[in-house]
């Protein structure tokens, strides 16, 4: 009987730990809203303050493959994507990938805290309604744009997107 109790407790603890981890990291991995065009339009330039108050402009990264991520700290699917973006930046940064985050939070402090907590390794700017309008309206989060080395939009992804989709597109452009 002791063995049985021990077995039950062990299984409960193991599955609970796994469940907690799944619960924390889970985001839907379905790809929806992906739009890709051969007739690529130029990604609108912007100049925004980053989380340290320095100016961040898209044009200063021209020549790199850019993954522009519109997100917010309170957005659950966005939060799920960030660690994957950190890995992607690590993996392809040397080959010319530059991920740029544009936070649509209402204030900068939660973004600064999040940046530290998630050990983000790419610049994050603080955007607003004007930036959203520039990109055709950011009316849901996250939204990611993949931009080629000439500054043209290669793909747009609305909603949480599997990192393998971004990786495939980035590799095709590098």
């Amino acid at each position, binding site marked *: 009987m002791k063995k049985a109790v021990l077995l039950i407790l062990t299984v409960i603890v193991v*599955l609970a730990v796994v469940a907690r981890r799944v619960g924390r990291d889970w*985001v839907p991995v379905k790809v929806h809203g992906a739009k890709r065009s051969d007739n690529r339009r130029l990604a609108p330039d912007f100049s925004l303050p980053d989380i340290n108050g320095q100016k961040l402009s898209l044009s200063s990264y021209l020549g790199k493959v850019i993954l522009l991520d519109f997100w917010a700290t309170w*957005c659950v699917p966005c939060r799920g994507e960030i660690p994957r973006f950190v890995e992607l930046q690590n993996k392809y940064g040397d080959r010319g990938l530059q991920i740029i985050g544009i936070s649509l939070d209402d204030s900068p402090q939660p973004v600064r805290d999040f940046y530290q907590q998630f050990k983000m390794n790419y610049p994050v700017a603080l955007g607003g309604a004007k930036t959203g309008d520039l990109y055709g309206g950011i*009316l*849901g989060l996250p939204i990611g744009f993949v931009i080629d080395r000439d500054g043209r939009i290669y793909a747009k992804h*609305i909603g949480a997107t599997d990192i393998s989709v971004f990786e495939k597109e980035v590799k095709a452009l590098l």
Partner: protein
Amino acid sequence: MQNVADRFKPVRTFALFLLSCLLSCAFALAARAQPGSAASSIPTEALIQPEELVRIVQSGKSAKPLILQVGSNVLYAQAHIPGCEYAGAGSTESGRQQLRKRVDALPRNQLIVLYCGCCPWSHCPNVNPAYQELRAMGFTKVWVLYIASNFGTDWVDKGYPIAKGG
């Protein structure tokens, strides 16, 4: 007798294993549920579909509901339902305070429609706390706009009316 008990020992162990798996699954689901924030816990009868709200907004009736956006101010400034007001993010205490202040003087039978549309419905952190807040204040007619994916996809892209500006 001892032999019979031994024969059923593997069955008993397997049954216990199954039971523990079920208990663990229940525990996992409870961990995922995050009561208080999940939009999916809003009762179905309190939901209103976009096409239904469009009809109400566009109807000539003078008694319109008070429509409040309880999500992101940045998203609100880009596009919102005409006549609606921004009432603070339901996921934050300061947002709920803004909401309370807005509705405090209203009669408790005022029809109020809440919406957010920041994220897919099951991930929206704002609508349920705002809904619970109004219910706790005694409001009896609170509807929540069901937005499956986001405001862009489920409202703007469908050609429903919008207004811009903060």
